[in-house]
């Protein structure tokens, strides 16, 4: 089975998020990037498990500048066979989907896996757009994936329960918690990653449909106001006038 896994990189979860002074861009200064956890822990690891059980290959693909190669090497260290970097600052979801589709369309992949969202922009858009561009089915928010006889059996979360879907290959699936368990690379993998192929592909057709105008940090959590248990009247007043919830 030939599997393609889309990986994006995101600021490390402990990063203090800041924007450039005009609030037009995320300030990358001093920020450590990691592979988007949904891509790494669930999509990539499940792809590797399928390859280990059934043979085939796992390729990771990332649209980004050269400084993202450290995160790509990590994906290779965890076990992907080879990697592709589309040499471009990812514009928006459409842009990324278009790049990946252009690369993947004539390569006979059986399966393309993406994470359910990035933990930075939380767009959840690339998978669906990509499936449309490839003309393939799309199953989102998958928590379990098995493949047999050219058919994928996928469990996905629905409101208040789970739905089991069957779908012939090829297809695009977005993965989330439950699909696999995070793997820590081992040293052999890290050493092997040094020499695994990482192809750099030029941008094919740079169309961006949206552009971010400005960013604003979320308001931090406010200090907790303690009110004496005996003073119910004040609590009710504040809930009404300040918190405006009653």
């Amino acid at each position, binding site marked *: 089975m030939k599997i393609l896994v889309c990986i994006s990189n995101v600021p490390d979860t402990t990063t203090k998020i800041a924007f450039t002074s005009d609030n037009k861009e995320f300030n990358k200064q001093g920020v450590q990037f990691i592979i988007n956890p949904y891509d790494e822990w669930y999509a990539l690891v499940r792809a590797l498990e399928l390859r280990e059980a059934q043979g085939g290959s796992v390729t990771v693909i990332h649209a980004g500048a050269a400084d993202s190669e*450290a995160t790509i*090497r*990590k994906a290779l260290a965890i076990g992907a066979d080879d990697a592709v970097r589309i040499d471009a600052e990812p514009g928006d979801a459409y842009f990324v989907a278009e790049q990946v589709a252009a690369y993947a369309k004539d390569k006979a992949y059986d399966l393309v896996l993406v994470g359910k969202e990035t933990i930075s922009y939380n767009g959840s858009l690339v998978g669906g757009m990509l499936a449309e561009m490839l003309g393939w089915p799309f199953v989102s928010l998958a928590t379990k994936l098995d493949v047999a006889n050219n058919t994928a059996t996928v469990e996905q979360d629905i409101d208040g329960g789970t739905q089991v879907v069957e779908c012939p290959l090829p297809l695009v699936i977005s993965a989330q918690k439950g699909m696999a368990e995070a793997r820590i690379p*081992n*040293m052999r993998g890290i050493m092997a990653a*040094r020499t695994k192929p990482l192809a750099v592909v030029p941008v094919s057709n740079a169309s961006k449909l949206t552009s971010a105008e400005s960013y604003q940090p979320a308001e931090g959590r406010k200090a907790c106001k303690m009110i004496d248990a005996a003073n119910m009247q004040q609590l009710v007043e504040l809930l009404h006038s300040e918190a405006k919830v009653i």
Partner: protein
Amino acid sequence: MATDNFQAPDYYLLDELLTDEQKLVRDTVRAWVKKEVSPIIEDYAQRAEFPKQLIKGLGEVGAFGPYIPQEYGGPGLDQVSYGLIMQELERGDSGIRSTASVQSSLVMYPIYAFGTEEQKRKYLPKLATGELMGCFGLTEPDHGSNPNGMLSNFKDKGDHVVLNGAKMWISNSPFADIAVVWAKDEQGVIRGMIVERGMAGFTTPETHGKWSLRASATGELVFDNVKVPKENLFPDIKGLKGPLSCLNSARYGISWGAIGAAMDCYDSALRYSKERIQFGRPIGGFQLTQKKLAEMITEITKAQMLTWRLGILKNENRATPAQISMAKRNNVHMALTIAREARQIHGGMGITGEYPIMRHMMNLESVITYEGTHDIHLLITGYDVTGISAFE
């Protein structure tokens, strides 16, 4: 123990001095320690038991012989990566780092540096995975800081030698499959050899009742007319130079390891100082607490700088034994001081197993003594700068 929320301090953005691969190696071992070591280590330390189940994982994350070339089964990493692995392991526990130090620098290194081709092929690949575990016998009951006076000895009997003597304070001895042992020949020259468990007359009684490195197994090596085949001797290395070059490599690793313990204590103290409220405000708001924290991060940053530079020198084969002594002495003392200060910041909680502080503090009491005591390293620096030995 509570969940491991460790965040590594990097006050001077020293990460920018590391290569992508060095960072990947470090982050890998850090993730492994969080997953495998932190959840269980307190319990094992309390029960004074070595968590043997970690051996396989230690092999997989490259903790055994990180710089041993791939042709002998090692990962073939550079010295900075080796240091970072030791730092992360000791962030978890000095005992776990000790096991890895011994296996790497005191067992694999001498086999790699002094062993015959057959010895290298026979032992190194299995030591790298942890399939075989080793220990290192230099210290004796009456010869610690002065190993040159050792009494262990062997006699030439044609195709084998007969080894007699006893070694004490030997990390990993109770479960080791092989021991790299240093003993004197009939001319009184120190030689090294590989003794295997199961050889008649070789026993490894465990040392009990330690208040330090409780999650690491320590014991003796007793040789009662042990027949060791001649092919188990290191062919060429003679004199104290052999064991000392092993110690050099281990001490280098310890100088990084100590930073790990210090970072863990600092990180825990910093978090605690923001959460613990006394007199209506977080204790981190009091000047005396801030002094402790500010001094801790200053000392950690200096130590990080020192070891990074030492690592570069080591990669270039230019690090002198005296430079390594300075880093080992400075960093272990720094870590111990930070552990004690961090314990104060944690108040009564600091003495419990809820926090890693007391365990680190007690562990570091061994680390400041083994691999050359704090004072011996000072004398090495003194000797290096004056040219006059103050040892004897």
